[in-house]
């Protein structure tokens, strides 16, 4: 059975941090169409802070996620950043004390993160936020335990979510106010998640 350990998590974070250099202005631009244009800058800063955070232990995946959650929470108070920290905290709780986490746990971890983010942010599925992309990944990974398959499915799921919501309006946060003008635009949070999935896959 395939598992992941602290070193895998770290490798993925480093890849994501590297990817943000390219993605930063693109995501800012996507956010600028709906509001304040800071998604990219914020995520670049947050992921770089996570990347630099020393994991409490090299053995406990949960402790690693917990250190990441704290680093993220210190680095920002933005909506998306705070939800990201919330998700990392959920991952930390779900992997606490484990040196190797079965890949099959990813689906329930994403599902729990999604639920925690919904509770914190008050958005529902279908509102066209990062949640819908996370939900898609949670569902796509159900029962999957092969790392390559998991990566491929996560990329496909997020791309499909982008496509599915492209023609629908944003229903929460700043973007809500643009109403039907958001039809045809990607949600910046969802786009960020999809781009990062692709980058780390």
């Amino acid at each position: 059975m395939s598992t992941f350990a602290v070193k895998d998590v770290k490798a993925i974070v480093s890849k994501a941090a590297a990817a943000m250099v390219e993605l930063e202005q693109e995501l800012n631009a996507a956010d600028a169409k709906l509001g304040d244009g800071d998604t990219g800058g914020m995520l670049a800063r947050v992921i770089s802070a996570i990347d630099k955070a020393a994991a409490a232990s090299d053995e406990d995946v949960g402790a690693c996620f917990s250190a990441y959650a704290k680093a993220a929470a210190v680095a920002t108070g933005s909506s998306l950043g705070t939800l990201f920290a919330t998700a990392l905290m959920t991952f930390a709780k779900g992997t606490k004390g484990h040196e190797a986490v079965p890949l099959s746990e990813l689906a329930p971890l994403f599902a729990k993160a999604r639920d925690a983010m919904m509770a914190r942010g008050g958005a529902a599925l279908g509102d066209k936020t990062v949640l819908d992309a996370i939900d898609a990944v949670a569902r796509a990974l159900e029962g999957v335990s092969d790392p390559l398959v998991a990566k491929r499915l996560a990329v496909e799921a997020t791309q499909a979510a982008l496509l599915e919501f492209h023609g629908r309006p944003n229903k929460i946060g700043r973007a809500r106010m643009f109403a039907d003008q958001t039809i045809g635009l990607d949600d910046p949070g969802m786009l960020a998640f999809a781009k990062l999935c692709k980058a780390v896959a």
Partner: protein
Amino acid sequence: MKKLMNAPGDFVDEALDGLTMANPSIVRDGENGRVIRRAEGARKGKVGVASGGGSGHLPLFTGYVGQGLLDTCSIGNVFEGPNVGSCMDAIKLANGGRGVLRLYANYGGDRMNFDMAGEMLEDEIRTTTVLGTDDIASASPEESAKRRGVAGIVYAYKIAGAKAETGADLDEVTATAAKAVAATRTIGVALAPCQLPGSAKPTFTLGDDDIEMGMGIHGEPGIWRNKLKSADEIADEMLDRLLAEAPKNAGSEVSILVNGLGATPLEELFILYRHASRKLTAAELTIVQPLVGNFVTSMEMAGASISLCFLDEELKSMLAAPAYCPFWRVG
């Protein structure tokens, strides 16, 4: 857009350093230095008023810490809410033993972080929440609780701060703050965008002759975008929209704040005020304590907002009570 700054990542901390170095009445505090509090600390026996918000809006938010105003303010990065640790610090540092009102503008990140902070401290400190929701362009009257908070929050700060200084308890301060928010309406108009430190592009683009009515202080979309009109026409539309949403129980006294978003000259704010005040008088409203200036900005964004705060006797006397902060002084 050119910025007088060093590394973009240092923008906020360096600005806070300068702010507190130039103004000894306030100091930086909190684990990450992202709380501004009164130099003398929380006053025992007074209800605390804690706020917070993103950077880039000076004098808002941190600039309103002072006597008769805020006790503390947590501050996030530019246009980002304050993080949860700073919100916790702001609440703790505002606590004089009689509880703390969390009074801040209605934005997603700010709400999440103040909520978490309150939850984490709920065994130690009693807190209440009042959200600034004055921007009438940001949601319909039916969904007024979803409205974002903009320049009108200054009225809530002033009134809640004054109420707390009277020795009122947390519920009373909370009720008065909520009343101030309920009595306040704002609408903005944007002429030109600002640019985030480190960002390659302005937060939005607007045609050479275009303005956007109802735009938010982070460039959130407004009601219409079209050719620039005369100042009087713009003031007319803004006031018409505000007056159409006057609270049901509104009396005849009103305070007005003509606020500059950053790059709009004071001369132009006074031109707006001139017409607006005449219009209010024509509508048989009496102007009390008018405010004209840059109270809530978005860095170098050009444009203005107009806020009306409909006053009853309590709000009026709280608005007139003495107050002092680096950017505003009353009495």
